[in-house]
């Protein structure tokens, strides 16, 4: 990986991600038009000065819908990541600290989750719980748990062999205290990088669930649902399918670049590599 590309990825990823978050936050207080306002007489208009991205099949402003969709994508994926990390990281720390049976149990549990194709499990979960934003978060979050658990465990195991941890043990600190005071801080950079990548996977997963109708419910806007609505209109209004798709691609691209950039900057394992 060339040195020249590193800051570029970080900068581009950072700019796109900031834009995404800004759009998401902005949509909570202001959108160019009210997304609840239907104007059926003017539906499916193309882009114009008044409506930069045109109007959808109910005559709603597409730009406003995409902003609201950003808010939805951000909240669902962010909470799913926090959920996954909130459960996965403590489990990983526990497994690394206790080893033995606890470790084995945690790892086998992650095996079970990983044994399911992600989307299939998400569909089963939403079928049982019903569609909606909260259940989409659960369905996506379930997959983040083992990812964080394994990453935390793996990294923590190597930290447990470090001299400063041995010193802390010699000083009589218990495993729980060592985990919190010495292990967890050392994992921060690895976890931040992983969180960014899981975040981007979450955005795609949320779009997929909404596309099959299992995500956030109307009238709330989501990019996946916009795509699903647009698909039947492909023959008469092809642009309808283009804008939400581009929003997904740009957001995911930004998050991936940010993740890569952060990894190059933060991950100590890459130190000294060309």
């Amino acid at each position: 990986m060339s040195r020249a590309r590193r800051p570029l990825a970080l900068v581009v990823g950072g700019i796109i991600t900031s834009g995404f978050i800004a759009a998401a936050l902005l949509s909570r207080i202001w959108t160019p038009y009210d997304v609840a306002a239907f104007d059926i007489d003017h539906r499916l208009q193309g882009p114009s000065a008044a409506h930069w991205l045109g109007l959808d099949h109910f005559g709603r402003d597409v730009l406003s819908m995409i902003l609201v969709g950003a808010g939805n994508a951000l909240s669902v994926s962010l909470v799913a990541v926090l959920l996954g990390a909130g459960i996965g990281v403590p489990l990983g720390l526990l497994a690394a600290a206790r080893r033995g049976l606890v470790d084995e149990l945690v790892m086998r549990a992650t095996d079970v989750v990983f044994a399911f194709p992600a989307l299939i499990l998400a569909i089963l979960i939403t079928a049982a719980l019903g569609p909606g934003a909260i259940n989409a978060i659960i369905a996506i979050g379930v997959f983040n748990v083992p990812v964080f658990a394994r990453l935390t465990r793996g990294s923590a195991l190597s930290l447990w062999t470090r001299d400063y941890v041995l010193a802390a043990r010699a000083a009589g600190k218990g495993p729980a205290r060592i985990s919190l005071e010495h292990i967890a801080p050392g994992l921060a950079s690895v976890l931040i990088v992983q969180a960014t990548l899981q975040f981007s996977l979450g955005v795609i997963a949320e779009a997929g669930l909404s596309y099959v109708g299992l995500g956030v419910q109307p009238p709330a806007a989501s990019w996946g649902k916009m795509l699903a609505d647009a698909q039947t209109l492909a023959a008469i209004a092809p642009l309808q399918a283009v804008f939400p798709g581009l929003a997904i691609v740009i957001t995911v691209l930004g998050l991936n670049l940010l993740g890569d950039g952060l990894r190059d900057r933060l991950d100590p394992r890459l130190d000294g590599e060309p």
Partner: protein
Amino acid sequence: MKVSAFLGLAAACLLAFAPVAQAAPKDTVTVALQLEPPNLDPTSGAAVAVDEVVYGAVFEGLVRLDAQGAVKPLLATWWEIAPDGLTYTFHLRDGVKFQDGTPFDASIVKFSLERAIAPGSTNVQKQALSVIRQVEVVDPRTVRLHLSAPYSDLLYTLAWGDSVMVSPKSVATLATAPVGTGPFRFVGWRRGDAITLVRNDGYWGQPAKLKTVRFRFIGDPAAAFAAIKTHEIDAFPDYPAPENLAQLRADPALKVITGSSEGEVILAINERVGPLADVRVRRAIQHALDRRAIIDGAMYGYGTPIGSHFPPQNAAYVDLTGLYPHDVAKAKALLAQAGYPNGLDLTLKLPPPNYARRSGEIVAAQLAKAGIRVKIETLEWAQWLDQVYGRHVFDLTIVSHAEPMDYGIYDKDDYYFGYHSAAFHRLMQALEAATDEGQRTAILGQIQRQIAQDAVNGFLFQFPRLGVFDARLKDFWLNAPTQTIDLRAASFGGAGGAEASTQTTSGAAGAIFGGVLALAVAGGLALVAVRFGAAYLAGRAAVMLLTLLVASLVVFTIIQVAPGDPAAYMLGLNASPEAIANLRHQMGLEGPAAQRYLAWLLGLLHGDFGVSYTYQTPVAALIAERIGVSLPLAGLAMALSIIIGAPIGALAAARRGKAADTLVMGLTQIGVAIPNFWFAVLLVMVFSIGLKWVSAGGFPGWEAGLVPALKALALPAIALAAPQAAIIARVVRSALIDTLTEDWMRTARAKGLTAGQALWRHGLPNALIPVLTILGLQFPFLLAGGVIIENVFFLPGLGRLVLQAVTQRDLIVAQGVVMLLVFVVVSANFLVDLAYLLVDPRLRSRAR
């Protein structure tokens, strides 16, 4: 080398199923339906799609209805009704034979009708037919029905698909291999895709002109448009996408027919819910609705506004659409009067069809303007039947009541919208007593007014009948009052051509792939056992089994928790609780969960996945059929992703740090970021709808020939492969860069190899290890991860089978497929681990 071997294997497997391609005959008609019938037995279950496919074509009853709703002779040539209305004598047609050779006579009538009303029968019309006290065989050509009470609608009931004549020999297999007396006979069903009928040459009447009828199932509006536009479909009698009709009308090769159906689309209001019991609140809702905007917005202008629960095309129709003009201020005033000056909060539960979902969004926006804040919840049909129809847990819902003359539901006790009115009940009694047509019409008018004045429900619009047909298709008749598609007289102008062979060979591809997989697994295991000892292998296998066991428990629990009763789903709106209980018993849904789990698990252990509730065929056979699509698709996508991704990655590695590397890696970043279903939609727009190179969906089956089958899989495979190729390019690049810096690469250069030779001989083989790992891990995800892609392209694969099984509450199928996928994932992980051990000597010592 490993890659080319894999490709060779895949190609060989594909070639093995390449029979001779056939010319398309023009005495074959392909009719598209939105919904696939769950089974083909019209005497059990309420699915409209069953009647559409087999009633009239395969099965016939004693009488039928014509387009005007008049009763006409069919298997009975004439009949007499005793003056007291208690005895019906039918004279039967001579020389009629079932397609299995059984002659049709009075004993068949006795058998068929007694079967419908027997205890344990799941016939939807059981209650109505139970008025028959006795079926008396007078002689082989004459049968007499004795009723327990006069029932003026008996002839109509006998004209429904539920009352068809069945051959006693065939009743055990009616669901999967229907046998009737009709002009067509059933020959094959590729589940998820198509049902094929061929002309019955031994038919008693005028033989059909068409030789073959294929029913295909396309519910997705986008796929429907592409299929009719590319002439894959000759007839779409119930076209799901009104937004495209204007365009289809402009096509001279197509004929668009629009009319009114018998379906009233209503905003049903649950009168059991506090505020909604108040007629002022219900009237406020009426004033808040703007029917024109709903019809324009949801139906693109197709549909007739209605003001009550009655079809405008009926002679007795009274136009009540002016009773509650769209008036937001009035609505607010009424709400305030009722004690809700600040509006109120309601939920609107919407079933899956587009008309309901779209109308629902518009209705919610309209009600919001009047201060009624509506929360939308979208439901699958199974959930809708359970929550709304069964348990009455809802405030508002939108649904089309498709049954003709169904105003009687407003007189039903405890119907789902909970309307009770003594005045209405008196009107219904007066209607039943009415003798002449003028009196009847007058009472029907009063009935409409009563419902409208009580603002029982929001009456939105009469559902339009939108049909799109090949312009050459003649005499294709949609029997309006009953749900049937009558094809006996249909033909293409001046038709003629070769016969189509339509036998389906299920899952041959799957069987071979399965065999290859089993061989590979066995070989791998043997190798590992020899090198690392049986104890290690046993340990790993135990972990694997434990994972599978826990996973099976998780699957079973989640699926059993899912709300929605499969029996209620199958029997539909008019089923009696008794019929549902009977079906639940038949399906083995009773008993404690633990017992059912164990039974299922034991079955799985010896390869018995159970029998599908809806299709009534073994789940294993269904899976085998679907694997024949999913496995080649996954293989094709994987091959494509390697062919595209590996060279790109190698190029980037070779030009590391240069502009080409940066450019290529930037592109792969974009590739990884593209959701495959969006890419799929774009591909359909460009290559199917725009360029018309390939069909937009469906799968012709391997027996249709290699080229059509591969053409159908091309776009889905590309859509699946694109993000995958980007990942592979990135992995290949970093793997190559890692190996290039190894000491032995320097040694290779030192002994005189050029950079290219060193890369080719020493770099690539070593770099393949991580690539193969990624492939091994991705394969099961390609197999299952095509769920959305299979939906975009309407491929009858495993993913769609799961989605469909979940929505139809075909629990046993959902459980089986998910377990299979879990098994594949776990096995793939296991194999990848073993491959690592075999390839990387450094790991072996640790394994021991």
